[in-house]
């Protein structure tokens, strides 16, 4: 059984990683609530943005411009998908909408493999070079951003949904699309805003993850899974539960690394936690028998 000293670095790593899972989960939930689409291409969009960023840095473009391009790509690509494919898929059931994003994922992965080939790529944010020693553990600013930024994004999104006209419209859409449309809400415009906002978060997550986890096409693409698990634990409703679930997934997964007997199973963490949560919710909904 590892002691606290052994676990300390894993706690820091888990918080940072969990924060990015949480942020991605929040982006997924906001989009789902506004449009009914579970965007499975989330990780692939982030990976593509990060690779574009890498290309720009590689040819000598200012790195901050390149980072902004990653975020902009996330917003732009998601927005375009939403505007082009959102309306025709709107009347279809959520399963069809989710599978359509799987198609988008496959296109992006193919494109990345075609354009970027098989060479390894990497991005090192300047914030990763700024380190502090915290109780014997090295903490970088990228990790601090990974923890703080998701909290800010969640709080900002929650406030936005509650206090702005577009936010209120998004919440209304989440309840009933048809009635909202009948009330005169410009549904397509509101949905486009949701796609764009979610995409920006996706771009940011891709940039942070490419630094915290590595710029690997397949690896980043499938990092949508922990975010998806966090969103499922929150039943695709609560932003704050998604946030907490993301952090818990990151922490548990990271800390399991220190347990020799369990380390090789740690990548199952999102699956296990999501399944436990789904079973628990199902049990809660069971009718009481007399």
């Amino acid at each position, binding site marked *: 059984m590892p002691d606290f000293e052994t676990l300390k670095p894993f706690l820091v790593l888990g918080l940072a990683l969990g924060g990015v899972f949480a942020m991605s989960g929040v982006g997924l939930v906001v989009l789902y609530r506004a449009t009914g689409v579970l965007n499975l291409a989330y990780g692939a969009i982030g990976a593509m943005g990060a690779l574009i960023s890498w290309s720009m840095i590689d040819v000598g473009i200012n790195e901050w411009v390149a980072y902004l391009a990653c975020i902009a790509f996330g917003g732009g690509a998601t927005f375009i998908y939403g505007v082009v494919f959102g309306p025709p898929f709107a009347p279809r059931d959520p399963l069809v909408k989710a599978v359509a994003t799987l198609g988008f994922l496959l296109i992006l992965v193919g494109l990345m493999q075609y354009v970027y080939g*098989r060479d390894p790529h990497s991005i090192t944010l300047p914030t990763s070079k700024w380190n502090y020693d915290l109780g014997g553990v090295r903490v970088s600013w990228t990790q601090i951003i990974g923890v703080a930024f998701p909290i800010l994004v969640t709080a900002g999104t929650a406030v936005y949904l509650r206090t702005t006209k577009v936010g209120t419209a998004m919440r209304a859409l989440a309840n009933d699309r048809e009635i909202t449309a009948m009330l005169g809400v410009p549904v397509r415009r509101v949905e486009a805003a949701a796609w764009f906002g979610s995409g920006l978060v996706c771009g940011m997550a891709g940039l942070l993850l490419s630094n915290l986890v590595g710029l690997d096409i397949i690896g980043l693409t499938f990092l949508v899974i922990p975010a998806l698990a966090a969103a499922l634990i929150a039943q695709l409703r609560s932003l704050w539960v998604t946030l907490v679930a993301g952090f818990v997934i990151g922490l548990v997964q990271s800390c399991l690394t220190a347990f020799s007997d369990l380390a090789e199973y740690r990548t199952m963490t999102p699956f296990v936690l999501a399944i436990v949560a789904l079973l628990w919710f199902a049990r809660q909904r069971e009718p009481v028998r007399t």
Partner: protein
Amino acid sequence: MKRSLVAMAAASALIVAACGGDNSSSSSATTAAAGATTAAAATTTGGSATTASGASTTAGGAASGGSNLQAAGKCGAGTGQKATGDPIKLGGIATNVPGIDFTWITGMTKAYFDCVNDNGGINGRPIQYIAETEQVDPQQIAALATKLIEQDKVLGLVGNTSIIDCSVNKDLYAKQGMFLIIAGVDQACFTNPNYSAVNMGPYYSSLGGAQAAVRAGAKGKIVIVGPNQPGFELINSGVIDFAKQNGMEGISLSEDTPINDPAGLAQKLVQDAGEGGGVVLDFTGPAVLPLLQAIEQQGLVDKVVWASSTPPNDPSVAKELSSAWNGKFLINAEFNVLDSGKPDQNHMNEIRGKYRSDIPSSSFAQMGYLAGRVATDALMGIKGDITKDSVNAAFKAVKNFTSDLWCKPWYFDSTVGQNVSNNNDITVVPKDGNMVQEEDCFAIAELAANPLKDIRAKEASLGLNAG
């Protein structure tokens, strides 16, 4: 209802990811070598290899010497005329799953044969190379081997590089009288007389990495970590045995690839190895890079001695590493550095550029090149009809084939039933965006559990691996 459908979609995605994300990969090896001069004696202790920081490779037998039929820098006869006769069918199988792509090797072998076909072929006959891809599925790879031999009627197999081919198809190949010139991954590729690899595989290459780590001062514990793939325990066992032999503790780990938590893995490796210990990584270049960056970001570069099997001996890996890694990542290289400037290396670069520029310049490309070059030489030496029997007999008969990519000349058959003809390596390290040679050729350690002692005795008596 809607929510249930979404949950189903999400669950499906989770399952798809669970099935697809965890494969494995490999590593394999490669290496280099520099000339055949210094086979320093690192043998069992790892203590005595020549360290020649920055020393350049002393070109060994080089492409022009020995019994090679092909001239240096030439493919086949080097006539510049396209071959137009009846094709000579050869085949190959490579693994391609997320996190590991061995098709670079069969791709480069095909590029070599394309070059041969543009230069007169084999006495005017082109080589038709059929490269298949497998996904670590025993049934699939058994079917592919059968298809190549019985349906496509290939005369020989060249460049096979698979995690399971050697284990699954060894009986088939023996029954069919096939002798394969391959790049070996699975340890079965090195324990069966029907295979001879141009590389030495992850078992021996990791062992070479551990030897370099010990020479660099690693003490106490050595950790070996590789992809979570079938047979990883056996691959890692060489390093564990070597550690014990040197009074150290050996720890064997495996990790799913792509590595999805490199920072966590980096911390674990350092904690397990302890301050001043050694860690040997056995991953492909793209898989290991995030780990190396996580190690650097967490300030762990100097905590232990970091070493590796061959695959990261790749300029694209060096290019992505910062100066913090200069001289601090000891990579066992089964082949020479990729910018050695030696004839065969230049030739490989030329062929890659002309026929398959999408394949990264890497140790895998070197393996594919060598497999193609050796096979071509064997085919050129056949007197009489080119048949399955004569092709496989020619492959089996290859002796002392020289190349500046190896430390020592290569042969197919050691006559001890286990072929590890590439058993001397160099060590390279990243330095300012390049891979440079750190140690001259040294002998991979002889252990009770490996056959190198017997093989070297046979080599001496038969005049193999000499030069």
